[in-house]
């Protein structure tokens, strides 16, 4: 049976898309709309949609509203929602998965600060195989240009000097910092994993 003649409200293509392409997406349909996740989220007052709302929107086929929502980007990965969900949905993972999928499709909100930071974090760690904290911090401060970066750097000067004095920040990391011996092998693993996953999801790398 085709779904072409069904009213749009009853088409569940988007649920199928989420089940196929989003990490732990097959669990979305288990949500019973109790709202415990919404009440457990530390950044709960800041998102556009609560997790249970997102899950119902997926079932209602609201593809664009879901993928452009800022909800997933408010996740601090505190796992309160997972620990408390009475239906044992891996809510944190689904939110991460939705964020990743929306980002890869280019639909996630542009300039969303956590989206930008998360991308910068992954690119930072995959470059040398280990996080370069100095470059990550500077990259984050300077993401909106040199002027904004210098202003932010001056604002945070006290914090930086405190860390420096405590030997918890290394200015020499600017020259490269910690890195893997078998960096080529590490890069090959990351590239291969991405290739396999993109192929499975029908995305171009």
């Amino acid at each position, binding site marked *: 049976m085709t779904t072409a003649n069904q009213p749009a409200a009853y088409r569940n293509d988007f649920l199928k898309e989420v089940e196929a392409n989003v990490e732990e997406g097959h669990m979305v349909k288990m949500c019973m709309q109790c709202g415990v996740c919404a009440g457990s989220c530390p950044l709960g007052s800041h998102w556009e949609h609560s997790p249970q709302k997102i899950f119902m929107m997926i079932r209602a086929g609201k593809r664009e509203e879901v993928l452009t929502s800022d909800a997933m980007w408010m996740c601090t990965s505190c796992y309160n929602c997972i620990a408390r969900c009475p239906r044992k949905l891996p809510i944190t993972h689904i939110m991460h998965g939705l964020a990743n999928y929306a980002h890869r499709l280019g639909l996630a909100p542009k300039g969303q600060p956590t989206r930008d930071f998360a991308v910068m974090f992954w690119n930072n760690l995959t470059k040398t195989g280990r996080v370069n904290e100095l470059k990550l911090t500077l990259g984050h401060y300077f993401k909106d240009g040199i002027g904004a970066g210098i202003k932010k750097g001056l604002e945070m000067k006290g914090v930086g000097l405190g860390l420096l004095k405590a030997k918890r920040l290394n200015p020499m990391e600017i020259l490269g910092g910690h890195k893997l011996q078998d960096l080529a092998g590490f890069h*090959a693993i990351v590239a291969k994993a991405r290739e396999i996953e993109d192929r499975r999801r029908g995305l171009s790398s």
Partner: protein
Amino acid sequence: MAKKNIAFYPGCSSQRKSSAANYLVSVQSMCDKLDIAMNEIPDWNCCGASIGYAEGGELPRVAITARNFALAEKHLPGQDVVSTCAACWLANRETQERLEASPHLRAETNEALGAAGLSYQGNTKARHMVEVLIEDIGYEGLKAPVVKSLEGIKFAGYVGCQTNRPFGIAGESFENPQYLDKMVELAGGEAVPYDQKVTCCGGALAFSEPEKSQKQIRDIVESAYDHGADMIVTPCPLCQANVEVYQSEINKKQGTQFNMPVLYYSQLLTVAYGGTAAEAGLDGQIIRASRLEEIAGK
């Protein structure tokens, strides 16, 4: 021969001159006293933390963590993979659970690892240092080497999120875990009641959403003061950094006068075991823990 051998996974923040460098210093001192040999996994890589999700999908994240397991299996066979960082431990546990549950994901992961001539066998067990302490050494065993009491110091035991959820330490509750308080007490300190014990510090969003995260941090520090604590103690490097480092920012913006030291459990134990301030990494505090330094100096 050490009492216990572990395949140690330090994680990025514990490296020399990184944000939790003093965590590693104190863990090393603590493990020396307890006769635990920390064998670093050769050429380990970042676990991807939690915030890696946006650009790295599930398989790339699983694959990089599986690389660490593959290296541990190859070079340190039979040893548990032990992390000190909450996010590292979580990534390791999650990866292992998923690879156990899905033969399909495991096949894809091994295909990716094959690009570097590695493979994941599933012969190791991902654990947190706290699990090694509580389950293998035990509270009595942890108490035995205590030579200096932390008597008179009141600690707010801040467990935070990822050492506690979704996996947590066996036998502990998500809402009110007790192990950190027990560690404080066996070292002679006083664990005060603390209602922000498992509150989120904002995690990586301390960077991207500073206002929202600093609201969390303010609650965490304020509650420690309200309950009469002299210091906060935590098992998580990101909790430690966020809760310590941003106090000055909150003071600047909101007119508070926060100056609450934030320590690791391993620093408390190192001092209680007779270690020096340097061995306990106390020189790595931005807000100095003077009373601990005094005890360490006696």
